[in-house]
Structure formats: structure tokens, C-alpha cells
């Protein structure tokens, strides 16, 4: 093992799944080349890892697989910059560097026995997917589960196999998918997530809402949740910041006194409201 936490370990991209019609979002299944490392790689839903494309750089990516399914590590990555562009160009079998896991995780203990309301938009279903599969794998420990998800168009929906096949199979679990604009084949709801969420009118009682999405959507979703009666400590979300080290040293991902890489990325709305609005 390297001494420095900044040194990644060698891994391999085992499988690449294109999520969207435009192929701008792909899911990469990776493994560490050292089996011992693979065995000992323990993470929680909500945590991230730093992926390296050597010669280009590193990028912090949330882990989209669930720790309940050992042996599978997946990252869902959107093309947004130099590093993610390079990852998108990769082919199966290609090597990359991985270090982590980093950051805190979704507060599973607080969710136990509660009704869970997942609200995601676009590519930000990635961190939620880890948690959703995590709780579904322990289905009995939770109350009703509702997954509200939206994307710009049917082609932009991620994890269709989860949304329309896997998750709907579970009992007492609702999957509600909307798109901003439909197409010829789309028969589901059309509209933005926040009004759609309000129209579903989920109960705030004994519930925890977990939301991830683009900043503008989050802002509206939080307002909707408040209207629906969710208190701040019933709402959990994640933050995205520019990161370099991932280990609380390099100093750039702070929001006020909190470092998103080690103190986040998961925050309750109560915590978030204590932070300055620099995110």
C-alpha cells in the first residue's frame, strides 16, 4: 500500500454501460487489480472515490453501486470536463487509478423504519442508486419507498433497467418517473420534478426525503418538500464541490468550516442551513 493517501491504486474498467441516448452518461464497473484490496474495499452508500486517468488528472466520483453487493464497484459518470472526457473514451479492460472511499455517507441508522422518499434529477440519480439498492437489499428494515425521478427527455433517463425493471419488483415501492419533454414513445408523466413531486403528495409523517440533482432542481425540491410538511432534519441531500485531494488537506472544497470531501458530501437540510451559501 502506498504511504500517501494521495497515491491511487491500479484498477481495471471491467464493464461500460451507456446510460443515455447521447452516451454522455456512462456507468463504469471497475475492480482493483490487487484482489486483497478488492476484498478490503469497504464503503458506504453516499461515499465517493477519486478516479485517475493518468496524464489527464483525477476526478471525484460518487459510488453508484451498493456495498450490500460485494465485489461490484460502479461509478456513473457524466462527461463534463477533461478527466471525465478521458474516462468516457476508455474501453473495457483499460487501466485507471482509484483511491478512496472518501467522505461521509447517507445516515442509514436514521432512516431505519422510516418511509423513504428519493427524489433525483438527471445524472444525480447516481449517488441515490447506491442508497436505493442498499435499502432495497434490506427491504424489511424500511417503510414505504418512493422514488421520484426526472430527466430532460426519455433519452436522458439514467438506470432505465433499475427504474423500469428492478425497482418496481419490490413491494411497497413506487417508482415515479417524469420527463421535461416527452417523445413519440413516452407515455408517462411530463413535467418538472418539483410540481410532479407535489402532485404525488407524499406524506411527511415518519418519512425521510433524500434528494440529489442539479442545484436549480434541488432548490425547488426543497421548497416543495417544505410545502409537503417535511422538516429540515427529515431532508437529506448531497453537495458537489471542486475537489483535489479528497482527504481534507488541499483546502478547496470547504463550505464555511466544513470540507465536503471529509465532512460531506451528505448533509441534512438542518446542517446545510448552518453553512454559508457558497456551494
Amino acid at each position, binding site marked *: 500500500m502506498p504511504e500517501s493517501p494521495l497515491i491511487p491504486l*491500479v484498477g481495471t474498467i471491467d464493464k461500460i454501460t451507456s446510460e443515455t441516448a447521447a452516451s454522455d452518461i456512462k456507468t463504469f464497473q471497475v475492480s482493483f487489480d490487487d484482489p486483497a484490496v478488492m476484498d478490503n474495499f469497504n464503503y458506504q452508500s453516499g461515499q465517493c472515490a477519486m478516479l485517475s486517468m493518468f496524464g489527464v488528472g483525477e476526478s471525484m466520483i460518487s459510488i453508484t453501486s451498493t456495498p450490500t453487493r460485494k465485489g461490484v464497484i460502479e461509478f456513473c459518470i457524466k462527461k463534463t470536463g477533461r478527466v471525465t472526457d478521458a474516462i468516457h473514451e476508455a474501453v473495457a479492460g483499460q487501466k*485507471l*487509478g482509484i483511491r478512496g472511499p472518501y467522505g461521509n455517507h447517507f445516515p442509514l441508522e436514521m432512516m431505519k423504519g422510516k418511509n423513504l422518499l428519493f427524489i433525483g434529477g438527471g445524472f444525480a440519480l447516481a449517488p441515490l442508486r447506491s442508497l436505493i439498492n442498499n435499502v432495497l437489499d434490506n427491504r424489511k428494515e424500511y417503510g414505504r419507498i418512493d422514488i421520484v425521478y426526472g430527466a430532460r427527455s426519455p433519452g436522458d433517463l439514467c438506470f432505465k433497467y433499475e427504474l423500469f425493471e428492478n425497482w418496481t419488483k419490490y413491494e411497497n415501492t413506487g417508482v415515479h418517473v417524469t420527463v421535461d419533454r416527452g417523445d413519440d414513445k413516452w407515455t408517462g408523466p411530463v413535467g418538472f420534478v418539483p410540481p410532479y413531486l407535489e402532485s404525488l403528495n407524499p406524506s411527511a409523517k415518519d418519512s425521510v426525503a433524500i434528494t440529489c440533482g442539479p442545484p436549480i432542481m434541488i432548490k425547488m425540491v426543497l421548497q416543495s418538500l417544505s410545502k409537503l410538511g417535511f422538516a429540515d432534519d427529515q431532508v437529506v441531500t448531497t453537495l458537489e464541490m471542486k475537489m*483535489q485531494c479528497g*482527504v481534507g*488537506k488541499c*483546502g478547496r472544497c470547504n463550505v464555511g468550516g466544513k470540507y465536503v470531501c471529509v465532512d460531506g458530501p451528505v448533509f441534512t437540510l438542518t446542517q446545510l442551513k448552518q453553512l454559508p451559501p457558497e*456551494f
Partner: protein
Amino acid sequence: MLMTIAPDNLKNLLDKLARDRLLVAPSMEDGVTRLKPVHSAAEIAFDYSNTATSIKDFLFPQSEDLLRFVTDGTLSIEEIKPERAQVAFGLRPCDLASVALMDKVLLGGEFSDAHYQTRRNNTLLIGLACENPADTCFCTTYGYNPGWAGAADVMLYKDGDKYLAEALTDKGRELVGGPGEGLFKPADEAAGEAVKKAYAEKDVPFGKEVDVQGIDKILDGFFYDQYWDDISKKCIGCGTCTYVCPTCHCFLLTDEARGGQGLRFRCWDSCMFANYTKMASGANPRPTKKERVRQRFMHKLNYYPNRYGGSYLCTGCGRCVAMCPVGLHIAGVIKDVKGVKAHA
């Protein structure tokens, strides 16, 4: 135990040290006295108020190779370790104090920065108390003083025609007993203590002007103040303050590769740079100078003490006071914030 060492012996010792390790010392070149690697004591400046750059350059260098990679078909990674022993001479109390502040960040928490740790272990720190604090010095503001030994392994105090010396760590004692054998003489303890006391009580005029007491608490409620908008306007967004600061430690990682192999470096970064927090998507949570200037001072005077308990992320070395091209520095901010608070 207190000792003395004659200037010639000190030079001999430094020459001896330069032979088998990197000797870093204040040296004047083209009118600038800074800490730099020197070949012999002859290159060292002994008469200076403070160096333009700090010990940070050698414990946490501006750019540092972290790993070497080969991507020729497969991928292999080799960690690069900073193994060379170095000795830094002539460190002022402000720099010696800064090391402890940096330790908290880089060595504390869940992850320890191995490169920094290795350099810390491999570096012998020789302090030199301040004879003439500059008019930009304000270490006393934070409770340090011109004789503060901080992280020094050996502390020296100029005492007339000789130096009073005190070995403070095992490493320091090894120096005195090893390469320094025969060069140090025992000192009169009482007289020595008096010298130390005199240094500790030496007047630092600017330090009296800057009262930091309670600023961390004031700043808790100061985030939204108009003040940040007002002062940030004159910032030109350069990295001078952060790069000469002995406690600023922001960095970025960057790769350089050619022909199937390359290096990953760590380089200093500056929260004053516009792109510092700009994400790949183009979004930037600190888009204007106001947020960036506020971040820097909030970090030093509020976030850091809150996170690491007590001390501020500043030692009053005065480098930013002297070098900021637009006179926007931490001492001024402390004075202003307390003034604004007083008026409020």
C-alpha cells in the same frame, strides 16, 4: 540545557551539515533575502529581519512530485518519496510557529499527508530569534514572540558576539552531540534564561496595534457583512499573500505525461485565483473577488480555529503585509473587523 556557540563554529557546523544534506538558509541574492539551498555558510545572510519566503517552501514545496506512472499498454504507479535529509537554518519564530499550524492540517485528521510527514521527519529545524522585528511583524498578536522556539529542534539567540543555543528535541540534541560536537560550549543557565526572556519580551510595535482577541467569534456572524464587498474590490487576485504565507496550504494535483509515462505533481494553489473553485461544469461557488477574499480571511481567522481548536492560521510574520501589492492583508482585516464591530 543551554549552550553557546561562536559565530565561526556555527559556520563550521553549517558547512559540515551542507556536505551530506541539503542546507537551507537565508541568503541574499539580487537584493532579496530568502530561504534557499546554499552550498556553504559563506552564502548565508546572518543579518536579516525575515526571509521573503518561509520554511513552507521546504516542508511543503511549491511543487512536489508525488508519483511516477507508466501507461505503456498497462499501468504501473510508483510513489515518489522525498527521502533527502535537509537542515533549515535561520528560521524566525513566526516560521517555527507556522510548522505546528501546518502539522494540524497535514498530519491531523483521518488521513496523514505522507510526503509532508517524511519531509518533517527528514528536516532539522534551526531557529534564530529575532533581533530586530520589522515594522510589518506582529507575531505577538497571536501570543508568539521574537524568541518563540515553536517547532525548532535547535533554537539560537544572538547574544553579543556569540549565539545562545538550546536543543529542544532529540533531533536537536543529536545535532549538538553529533556534528556539533566540540563546537558548542555550556552556557550560564541564568544568563541564558535572561537572554531568552529579553527576546521573548522584545518590543514588536506593529503587534501592539493588532488585537486579534475574539475575532473568531466576531466573524461567526460577519459572513454577510458589506465589509467583504468593500475591501475585496481592490484585490487583484494574485497569489502573493498565499504563496509567501507560511501557513497557507492549498494545493492542486496535476499530471504531466509524454510518451507513455509521466508524473503527478502537487502544486500550491491559491484561493485568490479565480479558477480555484471552478468546477469542470463551469459552475463556481466563489465567482467573485468578494467570496474569495472573504474565504481567505474567514479560513485563517474563523474556520481554522473552529476546526482545529484555538489557534489562528497566521503567525504574524508580516510577509503579506509587506508584499501584498494593494495593501490588503490580514493585520488590516483584523483591525478593520474589530473597528467595524466597535462602531456597530
